[in-house]
């Protein structure tokens, strides 16, 4: 009988502490839905328990009901899609009467996304949410590309962005964390991020969709009725990771909710390594309605495989200084097992492989422990 790996190759159900802090909101795990891809949670709850996520980020709610844009509102693009919904929604009254209580009843953590056309809209929305029971956090959407100004006014101007954030902060006071959702369509996202933090944002959600466009070559007209739309999906992931990286580098102690084309646990890990404390799974839901809960499981496994016992230790881990020159691992000489002669050579190779694998895992464990200590995270 050939030698078999003695249980070491089994995907052990390693426990990883998945709790993560977004300002004063301690989430049970770092996987959230993304605004505008999960409505208010009900539909996805048919496929998995939305209360099992770190939080449900609702579709941006506005002061009044809004019909949105004409159709077609969507166009599929390479590894992504354009949407031009135009913030269709029931308005804050209906949201507080129907959607929010449902989330609270389910035990889900509600992250309420708010959007408006004027600073006063945002202030009034914050006023309504301040005393609404069950709001874990507010995400201020200053960057929707499907409104009149194409997200230009608030998201691209540090002064205008800070006016909105200051107004919302003033209403919420210290009751709940406030995250500003930023647009990647700016020259310097760090400048906008800093303005939002200075104005009182506890953290940053990055990124909203990129402004894009597609032309139907049969009709020879724009594919979307709204002409331009927001690009999402894996196509934008490298842009999103770059934004998270830059802002985390500039402000390492500001929590980031990262998003942009996350389809798998490794995609989520990429954002966390770049500096996100948590991530939103958005467009993936259109492909796979169970994506958020699947990504949570995959992320937990990926963290365990890399020797992390806490997700918080992985936040920003890609920013660590270069690794020191590797210390050669002591060669583990496998005890030659009692094998039949014909299999001896193969078994020897297998033993060597296992030894290598163990040495590698040890080295990784050591690295991450060092980083956790030097990073000073608790």
């Amino acid at each position, binding site marked *: 009988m050939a030698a078999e790996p003695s249980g070491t190759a089994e995907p052990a159900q390693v426990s990883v502490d998945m709790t993560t802090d977004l300002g004063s909101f301690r989430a049970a795990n770092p996987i959230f839905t993304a605004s505008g891809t999960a409505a208010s949670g009900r539909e996805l709850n048919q496929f998995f328990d939305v209360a099992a996520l770190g939080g449900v980020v609702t579709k941006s709610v506005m002061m009044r009901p809004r019909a949105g844009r004409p159709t077609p509102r969507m166009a599929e693009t390479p590894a992504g899609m354009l949407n031009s919904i135009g913030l269709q929604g029931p308005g804050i009254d209906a949201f507080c009467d129907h959607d929010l209580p449902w989330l609270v009843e389910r035990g889900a953590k509600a992250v309420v996304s708010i959007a408006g056309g004027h600073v006063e809209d945002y202030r009034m929305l914050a006023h309504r949410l301040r005393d609404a029971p069950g709001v874990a956090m507010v995400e201020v959407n200053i960057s929707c590309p499907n409104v009149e100004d194409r997200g230009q006014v608030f998201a691209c101007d540090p002064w205008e962005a800070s006016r909105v954030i200051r107004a919302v902060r003033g209403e919420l006071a210290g009751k709940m964390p406030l995250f500003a959702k930023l647009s990647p369509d700016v020259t310097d996202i760090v400048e906008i991020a800093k303005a939002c933090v200075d104005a009182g944002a506890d953290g940053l959600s990055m990124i909203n969709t990129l402004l894009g466009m597609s032309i139907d070559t049969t009709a020879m007209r724009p594919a979307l009725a709204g002409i331009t739309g927001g690009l999402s999906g894996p196509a934008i992931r490298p842009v999103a990771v770059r934004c998270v990286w830059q802002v985390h580098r500039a402000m390492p102690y500001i929590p980031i909710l990262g998003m942009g084309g996350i389809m798998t646990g490794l995609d989520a890990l990429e954002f966390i390594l770049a500096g996100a404390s948590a991530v939103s799974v958005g467009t993936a839901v259109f*492909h796979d309605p*169970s994506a958020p809960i699947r990504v949570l499981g995959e992320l937990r496994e990926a963290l365990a495989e890399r020797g992390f016992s806490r997700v918080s230790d992985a936040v920003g881990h890609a920013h660590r200084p270069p690794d020191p020159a590797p210390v050669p691992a002591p060669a583990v000489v496998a005890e030659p097992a009692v094998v039949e002669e014909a299999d001896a050579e193969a078994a020897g190779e297998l033993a060597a492989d296992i030894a290598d694998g163990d040495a590698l895992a040890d080295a990784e464990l050591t690295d991450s422990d060092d980083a956790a200590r030097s990073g000073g995270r608790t």
Partner: protein
Amino acid sequence: MRPVQVRAEVLSRKRLGAYHLVTLVAPGIGDTARPGQFVAVAVGGARTGLLLRRAFAIHTATPAGMYGGTVQFAVDVHGAGTAWIAELRQGDAVDVVGPLGTPFRLPARPVAAVLVGGGYGSAPLFPLAEALRARDCRVDVLLGAATAERIFAEMELKRASTSLRVTTDDGSAGHTGRVTDLLPAAIEKAKAGVVYACGPMAMLRACAEIADSYGIVCQVAVEESMACGIGVCMTCVLPIIGDDQVTRMARSCVEGPVFAADRVRWADLGTVPVDALGAGSIELTAGAT
């Protein structure tokens, strides 16, 4: 019934005229599916760049039995996603969600019904015809398409109906002309109390107007392009008049695809009517940045 997401297995995929007929072993979907509901299929395989699901009206569904529950639907190839489906082979795995959307509402008492199908819009009419016959309804079927090879499920519907007539634009089968040309006579002959229609929007609108002129009920299953099929993306909306007489941009995947024809704002499709809930305050300058 709530929809389920299952990893289905292709039982068969065959060409049928201009279409492909796909049968999936999809436990949990066939058990609860009702006529008019649809499935949303992920396309392109594991590492695909095609993110959006493709929606197909359920043609036939069987509950769990010899094959563990099947669903069958017709596919018209017109892009990369449907082309991928057209290459599926027996035993291939497909991620499918269903049953989704609203079914056709059935009459409480026997009533004569005329069913109108455009192209492969006739797919959901077959289980509907069977359900109506089971309720002792007279069922007359009109099928229309551009060409003979785009007429779908003629044989099955012939079996499940009292009468069936075919029209084609080019005269390659049946009567030359539009399917709605035959609708007034069909309503009169059967003394029909209800029209059910599935097909292109222009055909649905014509059916709605003819039914209205006879003062009879009409239900339509709309074909709007969808991204998710489960009600979260808000792309498949159309203006629908609610019970409170207020027009809302309703999702055809959740509030539809079957609507009462007199609730659809036919003249305003593709627009947001100015009197729709939440319209007017915004975007008089759509796209003008």
